[in-house]
């Protein structure tokens, strides 16, 4: 227990990094996921094919590979640099990789949500003269979102847990790195591990309950 108290400030600072990453990636991947699903159902076959290819590639690549590539490949070899400060650069590289990866899952969840919208809704939208983008943004997506709140919650929970992989992108500040660092100096410590586990559960479980409750409350009555 002493180790946990002694290293608590470091661990909390690390966990704050995970929360920061989660917040930024959460917002960005919801935005890009929505754009991506628009591309995947668009009337233009070329765009559809490109969207499908991107989703299949990003979804089937291990996240560790995505993050390691964004750091060792894109940053070191190609020279993609967000900031001269290594830690800021690392942060945005993680955001880039994690967003590229997570938005495909957001896209796939939304697409399964679109499939739950009855045909008549889209037909009625077209009948009153709405264009593709209008019917998508005014009729289809609002209903699709409400149908997939719980799966989207699961995607967000997985994304929060995935922020621990930031270490693969050379971003050495998150709680997984702090834990490893502490274990390197003090040896393995069960209280520290349990403390971090509890911290994650405190964040993750309410999101699960909240999205579950919202899903029931906002379900489209049909």
């Amino acid at each position: 227990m002493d180790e946990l108290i002694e290293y608590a400030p470091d661990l909390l600072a690390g966990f704050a990094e995970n929360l920061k990453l989660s917040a930024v990636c959460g917002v960005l991947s919801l935005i890009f996921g929505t754009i991506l699903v628009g591309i995947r159902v668009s009337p233009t076959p070329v765009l559809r094919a490109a969207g499908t290819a991107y989703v299949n590639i990003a979804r089937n690549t291990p996240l560790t590979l995505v993050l390691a590539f964004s750091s060792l490949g894109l940053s070191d070899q190609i020279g993609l640099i967000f900031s001269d400060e290594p830690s800021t650069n690392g942060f945005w590289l993680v955001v880039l990789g994690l967003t590229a990866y997570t938005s495909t899952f957001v896209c796939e969840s939304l697409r399964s949500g679109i499939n739950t919208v009855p045909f008549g809704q889209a037909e009625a939208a077209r009948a009153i003269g709405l264009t593709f983008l209008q019917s998508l943004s005014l009729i289809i997506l609002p209903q699709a979102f409400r149908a997939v709140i719980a799966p989207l919650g699961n995607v967000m929970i997985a994304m929060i847990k995935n922020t621990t992989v930031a270490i693969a992108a050379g971003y050495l500040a998150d709680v997984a790195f702090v834990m490893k660092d502490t274990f390197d100096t003090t040896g393995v410590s069960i209280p520290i591990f349990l403390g971090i586990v509890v911290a994650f559960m405190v964040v993750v479980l309410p999101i699960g309950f909240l999205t579950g409750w919202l899903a029931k409350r906002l379900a489209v009555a049909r």
Partner: protein
Amino acid sequence: MNGGASLLFDAPGPRARLRNHLLTAVALVALLAIAWFVYSRFDEKGQWRAEIWEPFLRPTTWTNFIVPGLIGTLKAAALGAVFALFFGAIFGLARLSDHRWVRIPAGVVVEVFRAIPLLLLIFFVFYLLPSVLGGGDYTLIAVVVGLTLYNGSVLAEIIRAGVLAVPRGQSEAAYAIGLRKTGVLWRILLPQAITAMMPAIVSQLVVLLKDTALGYIIAYVDLLNFGFKIIPPNFPGSLIPAAIVIGIIYIGLNMLLSALATWLERRSRRSRKSAARPIGLSAVPGPAGAGVGQL
């Protein structure tokens, strides 16, 4: 998309066709611009030089680096899959027990391990084992134990959902003809549940295969490790080619497994052997579902 019509748009008329052609042209130009940008950026940094790609045409590169890496990945995945299926079967069925003292602890174990980030679990095991068992190489064990506990917990939920998906009439009928609890479970419920949950199990195995790459972080010698840490020093400058080659291998493996899952789902949807409806590929119900799905 039969006849060009879909949920969102009608079969296009003349004006819409013109607009679609225009959009296609614009999209093509945009995609080509992106491709050209990536190409020229790579070119600028000399990533298309023949000598950094040439090693991947040599058979020795494959036999010395890529195949051993692939074996490392597949070994961890196979061991993890077998143990996770065992773990999942035991805890999934334990959660269905009539006895509260079995059901509740099993539920706690499953929920906790589903909520822990896998990497933290792997780190913990990796640091715990040497201090308990003394020195040695625990990378494989750490990866396999982590994969087992996490994916086993997810599989436990899938198995539970599979058994619950069998209509109540089936077990009632089984009890009525005089089977006992074990008989009902093994002869009536599980055979039907397995058909229903096969697709979900296979797509969880895709997740498991992808997660073996976490072993890279604790220096387990897998495909990712060979690609990023062992090949580049041997063939200077070839990090990006190596990353692309191993990326293709990972994607190919996962797509094969995903295709198997889709095929199984279609088959079990058609089959009338089971009264249970197939469980969706990513939809495992559960309170506070801790990130189930293909992530």
